[in-house]
């Protein structure tokens, strides 16, 4: 039986508590890194992290990239969407295909 956790600054994530997800508010990045490690060692299959945290501790995130579990998924925080989540998806496309063929057209439009 696995659980789901949400990691980030308190204001961004407290709402998820009402859904029964486990909320782990952190104040700074080093705390977030330690908490992420703690969560990954336990039975958490999905860990949602706010974009700020996701961007702040890339080396910690990287470690779980190649493992099947946990899935570390960035979600936008209360301060708004920075687009890192999409950029991350784009990065995997580049890794797999060699060049970005999914998001290309969209970028040209926005330019």
């Amino acid at each position, binding site marked *: 039986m696995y659980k789901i956790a949400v990691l980030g600054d308190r204001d961004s994530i407290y709402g998820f508590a009402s*859904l*029964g997800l486990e909320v782990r508010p952190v104040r700074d990045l080093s705390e977030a890194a330690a908490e992420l490690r703690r969560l990954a060692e336990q039975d958490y299959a*999905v860990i949602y992290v706010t974009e700020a945290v996701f961007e702040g501790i890339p080396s910690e995130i990287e470690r779980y*990239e*190649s493992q099947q579990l946990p*899935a570390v998924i960035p979600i936008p925080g*209360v301060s708004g969407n920075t687009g890192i989540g999409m950029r991350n998806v784009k990065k*995997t496309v580049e890794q797999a295909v060699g060049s970005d063929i*999914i998001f290309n057209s969209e970028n040209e439009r926005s330019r």
Partner: protein
Amino acid sequence: MAATHVNPTRMELTRLKKKLVTAMRGHKLLKDKRDELMRQYLDLVRLNRSLREKVEEGIRFANRNFVLARAGMPDEEVNVALMAPKQEVTLQVSDRNVMSVEVPVFEYQTRTSDPNDIYSYGFAFTSGDLDDAVKSLADLMPDMLRLAEVEKSCRLMAAEIEKTRRRVNALEHIMIPDLQENIKYITMKLDENERSTQIRLMKVKDMMLEQAHHYKERAEEAFAG
């Protein structure tokens, strides 16, 4: 390239030929694997993109609702209202094998079966905005889980595709040409050796005939006489 390292012997030639056959087969199989992985990956990544758009939009909307709710009532009351969640989500994780990549499949169970039973507070002292906020997040839950599943699968598959592509390229551009060149080198060398032996034998035969019959001396005698 590596021609200097090979022994030009028949045994080596047989060995290399066998190796080439294996390499060709491996190359074909890996190429097929790469193509199929790519096909499935592209479908998945498109799904990933649309799900992410949906989830990010949903969270933005929910956050706006939460901000509204907090504006309408004191902080402590919001905290108290959300302090003891009614709902609890647990995940059942199983594996799906996509072309030898193990991707996770999530199935979730909620503690209370009623999807409307998500409000962990009495309605008397909280604002309606909080209800909206909680509801908007709860509606997003299935999509968020699906996003987690799809995005993780995408990352795992991307890594596998990259690995497979490298292997295919290594076989196609290095291993197979090298083997072919070595095989050619050995064949040429063996042929050359054979010709050389042939010529040597002919020469020896000439010399032996000369010794036995003294053609040259007789010819000279006949010319002189």
